[in-house]
């Protein structure tokens, strides 16, 4: 039976990062959870992005080595609306993606999540995304990186955006493009906080996804063959190790049933109260591994 791999995204610590935590601290916090993978925001953790100094690169490799963490996914953005008056051309967008692929590879990453601009309230990606990616498939192949856009609430699994990515995989036959699932799509109970703010009625009205879009976990099986990475989004795990928003038992059961054996990368996005994320990530790592063990023992259905 395949077993899952566990990582942590440094995004989990945002707001704390640079405020109560350095890059080395993030490595330390992550390694001590028992996770083996580290995910970063490229324009975030990479000082001097997109051209880090050699001193920074030395530090990066020293940390990877010292804390024995494998670089997993490198989050990138394509700033489609580059200025108020003009958008990136295809050549420019493809060049940005190529630059990030090279940087991610240099740092040892195996996955790159591009965040494309969107054109609608349904969050359809700018149609240029296909050209950006297609022009980089050979490069991604050479570098051994899989480009994986994120299926993120409010976009569900059964949606033309997800289908568009699958169609692209089918059409090109590439092995260097796949889906990343953000487990926030399975959220089935409302959030109480967003960033450092308590959610009020007005916010709830404008951002209905805060209540959860409740994708049925078994739908994961329908797309699992395309999924290359999972961001284990969560917001609040209580003192009894219960997640208050994400139904992990059926989610882990579906993921395990699918045969997925890639990373679950903790992505905390709850209350941004200083230091809170550190222990929340620890709780999630314990919870997820406990559920995997229960599944393996046949206790999880």
């Amino acid at each position: 039976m395949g077993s899952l791999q566990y990582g942590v995204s440094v995004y989990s610590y945002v707001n704390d990062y640079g405020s109560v935590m350095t890059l080395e601290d993030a490595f330390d916090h992550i390694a001590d959870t028992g996770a083996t993978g580290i995910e970063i925001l490229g324009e975030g953790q990479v000082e001097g992005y997109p051209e880090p100094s050699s001193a920074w690169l030395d530090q990066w490799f020293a940390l990877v080595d010292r804390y024995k963490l494998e670089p997993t996914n490198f989050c990138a953005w394509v700033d489609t609306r580059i200025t108020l008056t003009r958008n990136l051309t295809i050549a420019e967008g493809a060049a940005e993606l190529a630059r990030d692929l090279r940087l991610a590879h240099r740092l040892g990453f195996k996955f790159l999540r591009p965040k494309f601009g969107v054109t609608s309230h349904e969050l359809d990606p700018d149609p240029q995304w296909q050209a950006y990616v297609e022009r980089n498939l050979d490069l991604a192949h050479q570098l051994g990186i899989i480009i994986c856009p994120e299926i993120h609430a409010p976009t569900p699994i059964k949606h033309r955006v997800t289908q568009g990515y699958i169609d692209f995989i089918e059409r090109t036959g590439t092995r260097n493009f796949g889906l990343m699932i953000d487990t926030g799509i399975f959220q089935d109970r409302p959030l109480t906080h967003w960033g450092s703010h308590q959610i009020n009625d007005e916010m709830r009205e404008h951002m209905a996804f805060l209540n959860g879009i409740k994708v049925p976990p078994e739908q994961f099986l329908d797309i699992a063959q395309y999924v290359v990475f999972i961001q284990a989004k969560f917001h609040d795990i209580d003192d009894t190790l219960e997640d208050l928003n994400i139904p992990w038992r059926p989610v882990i059961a579906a993921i395990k049933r699918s045969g997925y054996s890639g990373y679950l990368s903790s992505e905390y996005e709850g209350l941004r109260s200083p230091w809170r994320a550190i222990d929340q990530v620890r709780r999630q790592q314990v919870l997820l591994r406990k559920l995997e063990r229960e599944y393996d023992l046949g206790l999880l259905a």
Partner: protein
Amino acid sequence: MLEHQLIQSTGFRNIGPVGARTGFAVRIRIPNYHGTRLSQLDGFTVTVDGEVYGFEQNRLGIRDEVYVLAEMREETTARWGLLEWGEILVDKPGGLEPGIHKVEVLARIRYSYFPPDVHVFPMHEARLATLCVA
């Protein structure tokens, strides 16, 4: 290290020559969860003790450069790193009085992955901050 909150305690100061101040500065950490191309910033409105200083006039100081809004909007190369602070530079002849002030910042960030009609995201924070030197 930066303070957790957007508006920093240190760096809230008068600017220009002592005795002939031209304005004041508010130090902030980046109003985003990742580093940002300056062209993705669309200015900062500052309010001090209820008086509004509009984003069209305020400048951004970062590292050794100062950008007016039009320059920021077109600056597609220079970036604001996650670990760096910037300061909003506000014109106000004479500067502010030393003491405790109610300071508000409304930062306007553009996200290409938000729908086009709402892609300028306003981030607002308010606090009491102390300006030390006349």
